[in-house]
């Protein structure tokens, strides 16, 4: 085959899946962008410009933005904080390791809706958690943990659901750290904490960043869990977007929220990657 023919053949082979994804995503993104500046509005009278943005940027949108951002930060960073000790511990060999690591992976296999339901049962007003705390006389009356203003219910559901994922990524990167490196550090007099700080932490940082970013994006754009257990006000960004679009046919404003969500996710991912690089340079 000629070189040119070969290139053409490869191009044709690559096309099906790539073309499919590119076509649909381009359609979605272009539709979002155009609607946010006034095209395809429900009333079919197109006023192109930033009117939709002016209507969108009010106190309610701000409340939703801050709420979603807070929950996303708390879930992703809180999850990382819990995942590190588990992943570090799972590096050791001990009796029952297989059972524990399999148990801890169960939430990974569950749909978000099911996870939400499972935790909702536990945390409801007369759920087992409240009853246990009452029986132990730790609290005097049941706590309101679902639909609470702080989004505690959502936070617990998200961490329960995403912790295995973060642990799995961390375990994978930590397993790749050569044992000799750790042994060398110990021989040079490093204690457990120093080994973590100067060897394990910097080398596992890429995995930690991947986990945090993916959880952050998922929680930032969450609709289902917030509908099930979120506060009555403010609605999450996705709920507000859904209501604006589907219920009130304000598609321009809904598109604005879509763009805000995606830009926030992108900015967070870039910032965190930068921060990780900087940290590695400072520590190493």
């Amino acid at each position: 085959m000629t070189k040119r023919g070969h290139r053409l053949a490869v191009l044709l082979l690559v096309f099906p899946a790539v073309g499919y994804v590119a076509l649909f995503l381009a359609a979605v993104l272009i539709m979002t962008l155009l609607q946010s500046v006034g095209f395809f509005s429900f009333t079919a009278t197109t006023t192109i410009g930033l009117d939709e943005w002016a209507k969108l940027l009010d106190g309610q949108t701000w409340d939703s933005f801050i709420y979603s951002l807070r929950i996303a930060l708390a879930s992703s960073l809180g999850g990382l904080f819990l995942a590190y000790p588990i992943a570090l511990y799972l590096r050791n060999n001990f009796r029952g390791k297989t059972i524990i690591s399999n148990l801890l992976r169960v939430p990974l296999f569950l749909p978000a809706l099911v996870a939400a339901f499972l935790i909702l049962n536990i945390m409801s007003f007369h759920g087992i958690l409240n009853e246990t705390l009452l029986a132990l006389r730790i609290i005097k009356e049941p706590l309101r943990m679902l639909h609470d203003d702080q989004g505690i219910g959502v936070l617990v559901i998200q961490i329960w659901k995403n912790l295995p994922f973060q642990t799995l990524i961390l375990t994978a990167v930590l397993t790749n750290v050569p044992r000799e490196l750790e042994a060398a550090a110990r021989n040079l007099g490093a204690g457990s904490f120093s080994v973590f700080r100067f060897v394990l932490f910097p080398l596992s940082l890429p995995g930690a960043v991947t986990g945090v970013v993916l959880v952050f994006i998922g929680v930032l754009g969450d609709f289902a869990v917030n509908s099930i257990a979120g506060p009555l006000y403010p609605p999450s960004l996705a709920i507000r977007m859904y209501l604006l679009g589907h219920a009130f046919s304000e598609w321009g404003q809904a598109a604005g929220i879509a763009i805000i969500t995606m830009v926030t996710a992108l900015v967070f991912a870039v910032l965190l990657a930068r921060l990780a690089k900087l940290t590695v340079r400072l520590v190493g």
Partner: protein
Amino acid sequence: MNGRVTFRGGRRHGLGQAIRSGWLPLLLLFGSLIIIGVPIVMAVAWSLVDPDNPWSFPDVFPPSLSLAQWQYVFKYTDIVRAIVTSYELAAASTLLAFVLSLPTAYAIGRFDFRGKEAIRILLLLPLVLPGLVVALFLSRVFGFMGLAQTFPGLVLGHTLLVLPYMARLMSTSFEAIPRDISDAASNLGASELRKFREIYLPMIMPGIFAGAILTFIASLEEFALTFVIGTPDYQTIPTILFGFLTQHFVRTNAAVVALILMVPNVVMLFIADRALRADFVASAYGKL
């Protein structure tokens, strides 16, 4: 069992000792049993509540169990139709994802060309974009094309969302075929087509199997897109569950539907995990 308690030297104290000796693993086992096990046991219990003997405040466990909730859900809700729709949708989108991924994964795995990394990232984008954004604005696009509220529209949308799993696992399997084997076959005069049929295909079978299970499950679990593009004409198991968890909150019904949704998925994933003896879940998500 690969777990055996090992003692390295006798002079370790404190945390190091605790990690290697008995009580910390026990504590961890106990903790994970409670955190993972209790929610699941409670859901099973809620699905077996006896309506004649209700489960309420002081009882830790239902006073008597019955299958009445299951009978109720199957008799008076749309669950049977939703189960059929869900599995048809999953089968159709898995098949379409396979057909689309086969040539692309082959090209990514076997040839070097410019822009490969960009293509890999593009293929993962549907997993990263917020699900409801894709759902809402794809529904607008479909609205203009007459595909909203149709089964083909749902298949096309689901395929977009599950394709990354299939493409990723298949291209990884193609890449894993050792160069020597394909070179040896070429030296013996095998054409590219023959190599594809007799060497590549058998070797990527586990990857196809894993990809098919992951895409099938991802489609069964998909909620946002089906909710926006399908309801009210097309209900799937997740949209029915969502209904029971929000406007029509009925805990016992939700428990039944949650089990209908989760049990087959967990069984499929564990079977696949065993069959492949590899952490394919990790390889699908992990190396982003």
